[in-house]
């Protein structure tokens, strides 16, 4: 199955293998480190790997606003050859640079320290504004969670971006429907983000967040100011018995769960 790619390539069977490999590496990293937040890492990993391999150019900037998905970012960078196997082995260990939430200052693709939600959209808007004012090229991508849009600062940034005509800014929303202590609907009636985004004059695309073809298509063409891509995802994807469940946010993997998840990811490179 192949489809057009904004960079002129094709999404192929080979790329499915890249995704499988990344999923397995993320599982291994979290299993060995016994670190939580795996569910939200698995929900956005496919999108991050797709961005790293198929979308981002040297002029583009990616900002991970949902910093608790640092593991997915590290694995996506590893998958793209920007972090080493040895780097990943230090995840969450004493002396590591690979913190549970990204810490900046050592890697060009980790521009900002994030982890407190609601910061990425404003940072991204400022970066996009900088490119506009200076006439420099490059697109600014920022991945948020869905619960993160309960932070007022996100709406401040969206208002600013729309008013300033930042058509070089794309906000991606990992809509897995679950947050820290319940679903986004139960906690704050925020399952319906798209009409809210449209009311703020953003251009909105909603896609299956685990379908690279769909993501690439949603990023295609001239962007509105800004474009928002809502990624419909499954929290804890490939975790048998934990998919779409709160427990995937917190529980570290046990041996049998890890083996089952690796198997669920399928074979590949």
């Amino acid at each position, binding site marked *: 199955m192949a489809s057009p790619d904004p960079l002129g390539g094709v999404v192929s069977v080979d790329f499915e293998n890249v995704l499988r490999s990344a999923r397995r590496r993320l599982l291994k990293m979290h299993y060995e480190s016994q670190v939580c937040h795996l569910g939200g890492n698995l929900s956005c990993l496919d999108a991050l790997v797709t961005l790293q391999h198929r979308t981002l150019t040297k002029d583009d900037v990616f900002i991970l606003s949902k910093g608790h998905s640092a593991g997915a970012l590290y694995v996506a960078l590893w998958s793209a050859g920007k972090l080493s196997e040895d780097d990943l082995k230090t995840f969450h260990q004493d002396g590591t640079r690979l913190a549970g939430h990204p810490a900046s200052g050592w890697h060009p693709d980790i521009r900002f320290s994030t982890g407190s939600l609601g910061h990425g959209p404003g940072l991204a808007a*400022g970066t996009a504004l900088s490119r506009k004012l200076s006439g420099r090229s490059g697109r600014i991508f920022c991945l948020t969670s869905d619960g993160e849009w309960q932070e007022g600062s996100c709406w401040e940034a969206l208002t600013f971006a729309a008013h300033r005509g930042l058509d070089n800014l794309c906000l991606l929303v990992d809509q897995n429907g679950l947050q820290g202590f319940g679903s986004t609907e139960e906690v704050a009636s925020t399952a319906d983000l798209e009409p809210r985004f449209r009311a703020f004059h953003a251009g909105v695309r909603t896609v299956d967040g685990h379908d690279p073809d769909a993501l690439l298509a949603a990023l295609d063409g001239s962007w509105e100011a800004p474009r928002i891509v809502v990624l419909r995802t499954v929290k804890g994807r490939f975790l048998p018995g934990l998919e779409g469940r709160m427990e995937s946010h917190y529980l570290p993997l046990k041996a049998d769960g890890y083996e089952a998840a690796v198997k669920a990811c399928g074979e590949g490179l």
Partner: protein
Amino acid sequence: MRDAFRDGMTALARGGVPFVFLTGDLGFGALEPLRDALGPRFINAGISEQNLVSVAAGLAADGTDAWAYSIAPFLYARALEQVRNDVCFHGLPVRLVGNGGGFSYGSMGPTHHALEDYGILTALKGMRAYVPAFNEDLAAVLAALTARRGPAYLRLGRGEAPKGVPMPDYAPWRRLVSGDGPTLAVVGPLAGTLWSASLNLPQNRRPRLWVCAELPLADTLPEAFLEDVESSGTLALVEEHVAQGGAGPALAAELLQRGRAPRIFRHFAVRGYPSGRVGSQAFHRRENGLDAPSVLAALGCLP
């Protein structure tokens, strides 16, 4: 002081210094010349201080120098996490400009007073606070801020310099009055009022009056100040800021560590709103014992 700030910034813009100026919907009737000089680089970011600071950080991280302007507490209190995480964690050259230092906003009420600003901000990584005392300081302070490659906070107050008195050139520490009385260090504009009140005191009661305009203060303490402290034996620090996190405890600790502590140390700082009532900046200074007669009387400087 806001007008002096505006004039200085406008001169920088017209001189070709590249920067973006963001305001949180403030500056009507004041900042228009700067707006006109900067054109699209003057951004009214609206009433959204968290975003204001994050955008400034995003600009700076991408190589565009940024200034972020608002009423002081809206920056250091409302947007503190953005200052901490987005600006200071990354050591970015974002200049936060807080108008209304101390009780400057007077009867506008406590929400507009900035009584903990430089204490909070200088606790953050790499942050340096500038508290110019006089309108004449602004040109030098703005030059320093422009040259600085890390986070900075500028606290704007009200120029209170006495008229007809030669103004010493800007420096982080300056001696304003030489007397034989106690050594008196003052942070920011309040120094002007104490300067006026000290001029006609007899020599034996006149304080050795110093003004401090940059924090943290430890790395700029001049030897002449330390000598004044030693020879007078009494040091008082006055600041329109709460004691916790203020310049007073920092100065005392620094002198102790250097083994040059005075025999007597007095700290005059903001206690709050003891009467529960609100008034002018002068009213609040009096209520907190920060007005010149109260300070000078407490130090035995008045005849």
